[in-house]
């Protein structure tokens, strides 16, 4: 959707944005995305976003780390290189715990962040969408795929202005 054109409404505070979003969805307009200086609570419902996968991924990565740590330590201690160290038995279990824990955290943490970047397709050099509308500063931007018909466009325009949009304008994703 690189060079798609958007119709964006720019708001000055979050509850106008929320109101507009609700209204627009009720009016059946398809919301492309909203751009805000900080996470606005209630937008998920307003935009009817699906639940995210991240918690489950986090768990999987953690489990992987744990498994790797335990198996590797056991393999070294019991199979590959059993050594008499301080008279302790080869697979002294309590000694496995600290490293197992650390690797769990390490894998889970890095895994979560990486999956986030992948899911959101964020990477160095990515072009931000709807830049220049001050979404990173003080404005709250609501973006729609430009409606096909002139009439629809007018309705949306009106709807946004009524809901307190400072301005409504065409914008492109670059």
């Amino acid at each position, binding site marked *: 959707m690189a060079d798609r054109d958007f119709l964006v409404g720019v708001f000055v505070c979050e509850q106008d944005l929320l109101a507009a979003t609700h209204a627009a969805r009720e009016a059946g307009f398809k919301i492309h995305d909203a751009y805000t200086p900080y996470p606005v609570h209630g937008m998920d419902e307003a935009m009817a976003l699906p639940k995210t996968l991240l918690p489950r991924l986090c768990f999987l990565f953690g489990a992987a780390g744990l498994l790797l740590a335990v198996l590797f330590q056991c393999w070294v201690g019991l199979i590959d290189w059993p*050594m008499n*160290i301080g*008279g302790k038995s080869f697979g002294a279990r309590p000694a496995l715990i600290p490293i197992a824990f650390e690797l769990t955290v390490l894998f889970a943490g890095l895994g979560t962040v990486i999956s986030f970047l992948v899911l959101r397709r964020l990477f160095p050099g990515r072009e931000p969408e709807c830049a220049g509308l001050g979404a990173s500063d003080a404005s709250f931007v609501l973006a729609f795929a430009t409606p096909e018909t002139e009439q629809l466009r007018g309705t949306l325009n009106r709807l946004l202005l009524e809901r307190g949009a400072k301005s409504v304008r065409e914008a492109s994703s670059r």
Partner: protein
Amino acid sequence: MNSERDDIEAQDRRDLVRRGSFLKGMAASFAALSGGGCVFRPPEGKVVPLMEQPAGVFPGETLWYATTCGACTASCGALVKVRDGRPIKLEGNPEHPLSRGGLCARGQASVLDLYDSHRLRFPLLDGKEASWAALDAFVSERLNGVAVLSETIVSPTLRFAVERFLKKFPGSRLVEYDSLSASAILDAHARTHGVRTLPAYHLGKARVIVSFDADFLGSWISPVEFTKDWSPNRQPEREWDTMSWHAQFESRLSVTGANADLRVPLRPSEQYETLRQIGLAVASLVFWKGPKPPAGEPSSLNAAAVSDTAGQLARAAGRSLVLSGSPDAATQCLVNWINAMLGNYGETLVLDPAGLQKRGSETEFDRLLGDLEKGAVKGVVVLSGNPVYDHPKGAELAKFLDSAKLSLSLSGRPDETAVRCRAVAPDHHPLESWSDAEAVSGVLSLSQPAIAPLYSTRAAIESLSLWAGEPMSALDALRGRWKKSVLPGADFERRWHEALRKGVVLSDVKNPKNLRFDGRVLERLSPNPLRSAEGGFELSAYASPVLGDGRQANNPWLQETPDPISKTAWGNYASFSPEDAAKLGIVEGRVVRLSAGAASIELPAQIQKGHARGVVSAALGYGRTHAGPVAANFPVQKMLPVEREELSGADLFPLTAYSSVRVESTGRMSAPAKTQTYDEMSDPITGRRRPMVQETTLQDYFKDATSGRGKAMEVGPSLWPAHDYPGPKWAMAIDLNVCTGCSSCVVACGLENNVPVVGKAEVRKSRDMHWMRIDRYYNENGETAFQPMLCQHCDNAPCETVCPVLATLHSSEGMNMQVYNRCVGTRYCANNCPYKVRRFNWFDYAHEDLTQNLALNPDITVRTRGVMEKCSFCVQRVQSAKADARAENRAVTDGEVRPACAQSCPADAIVFGDLNDPKSAVAKKLGDPRSYAVLSELGVGPSVFYMTKVRNKKV
């Protein structure tokens, strides 16, 4: 886990072993060959590599040769370990009847003297290098009417050569002296028995030993022999009355005193009167009718100790022995009197065969000085010894050496005497020369060269015979003399080789004279002349067991080995009793000035428990100006920080001319380099005693064999199953009862394992590297206990668990192994070691004197900087023993493996072996009720056990 390596080693050895007997038999010729092919060679000869490999000599193969230790006149039997033509270690010769396999610290370390690059490399004329020809020419025209000055000559062959030399030049004579003089004992016997000789002492026969300032376990006459005699009688295992009783009356705390059952601090000036009172008490007990000696200085000794001692002596009449180290003949006469009354002559001490270790005479030395004064003696040939340094009147002698027509030294080192002589004809190091020794008449031991002379030196025998006009090689002289008087009769060659193999021959003394004690001398005794007018402190100058008279002062190992009592290395110090120190207001390390007459020295003070009041004591042998860089305390290694001091210690010999000195405190401080900075068994805050040393009395021991155990906490059950040791499980048992603290093991360990020497500044920082150390503690009664401390090879070693890179782990034979090349140096293991036996390489500790690298043991890695190291139970010896056993398809026999410390111990206090073999000596020791493990309550499961110390407090 070493099985492959064992196989390979075994492979190498099989064929050798077949040759084993042959090797032994031909030791002599190998000695010649290994040393470069020929022994009597022109002086300008060099050490040439072997053109063709001599039969039976294999690179990397160790050869052992029997020889005689040349470190002092005690002349202990030694085995020299030769690796690729290099002597790298000296060990005691078990076949020698006197030393019986023991060798003291000085003997052990003497191998480093061989490789001392500070030795003379060529003859000197007027201080400049000269050819032997030039020197001989210079010398031979000045030889009329000279005196040959020498320390006691123990080599019959050399004595023979000297006599021939003297016959050749009329008017010349031999003067013998001893740096650690026993002249008074000889003079006393001249007066009481009509023969000026040193008795041969048999401490082994003595049930009761009473010693006055005679440090016979440390440095007196023949310490190794005496320790070998003394220690078996210190085993309480035998029935009640066979543990000997040992009383020590002494002015300072000596190693011998530290091991005595009764120890009484006594000023030297009180010795005469104390002996007299004991003598009178004995006299009344044995009904002595003869004359009685006159009274001397009043003694502060309490009557109880006198009567107790006398009682013990009398009860053991004929099986007792009284010894004295006093330099006063009158006092020695009293000793002879008591021994005579008790009928000890012929039993515990014998005049014929006599002891020959000391023959020096102070009167002779004085006469020589007089004759030099008068000009009756034209020149001096200093055959051996270093009189300018180690005789009280050395300075006077030095004057004449400068002026005399001929002043010639045969010293192998540019020592204080040699540098004052016009000509120096350097002698070989004992390990380079053919010689023999007769320390006790009838016991003849051989010295054979283990290496060709490193420098252009010449054996004294050769020099003398050359100057006497009948040149012959030392070997010829030796063989000639032995053929005539030692091994007469047929079949000389076989017996000669046999003698070389064993290293010693016993020739029975023909018709020994039966000498009787003559009591008439007693009335004529002049009461104790010791007390001198000027008052002040009485001086007690002693030889420390590690540095002796200082002839080896340039030996880094001896300098770094701490004194067994004070635990101070690198330098001497003035010891005071705590009371006197308080009176003088001096603290440990305060520099004090000792002065008497013209002589005056400065030493740091040391406060010594058990020291006699009114006495200051200090060690001889330090403060040498011409011994070399080590004695002058220069860096052992360039990278090391060094507090530059003029000398390590101060020279005490000049003061020994006086019996008392003035003491004044200078403002300065000089911290002694101590390896142990806390001395007590109990801690300083709670005063609670710590149970690392467990001791009891003989009486309690017989009531309860496990007495003296302290309140050691019990070991809880282990959380995990123990590992099993299918093969051998190596362990060590150390008997605290017989360990005298002599420190021979410390030196042996260091030389065997290439342990670095770090120098004074580093020892001050508590960075000594000794793998084997001897802890010295004082208990609440002020009694001393020694505890050799080394890696305990714990089954549950705390050090192993904490190493992140597994640089230390456990062997399948119960050894705690350190993998140097894996170590990254976190020092966590050292922190977590309850015994603090791990040592860290803070710097690169290479020898500053590169020649001494030749003494390194090729079996042992030289550790680099940043690596942890520690005792390995001499794993290299275990491995080679296992290889030998494999080669002969047998198991390693008990006692076959002996770590360096156990091998060198003159008291046989250390037993090593396989715990899994129930018949092994160490397993028996473990079964002994006296055995315990230090800090066993930690559950670390040490493999080293100690035997409770039992004190024989009969009285």
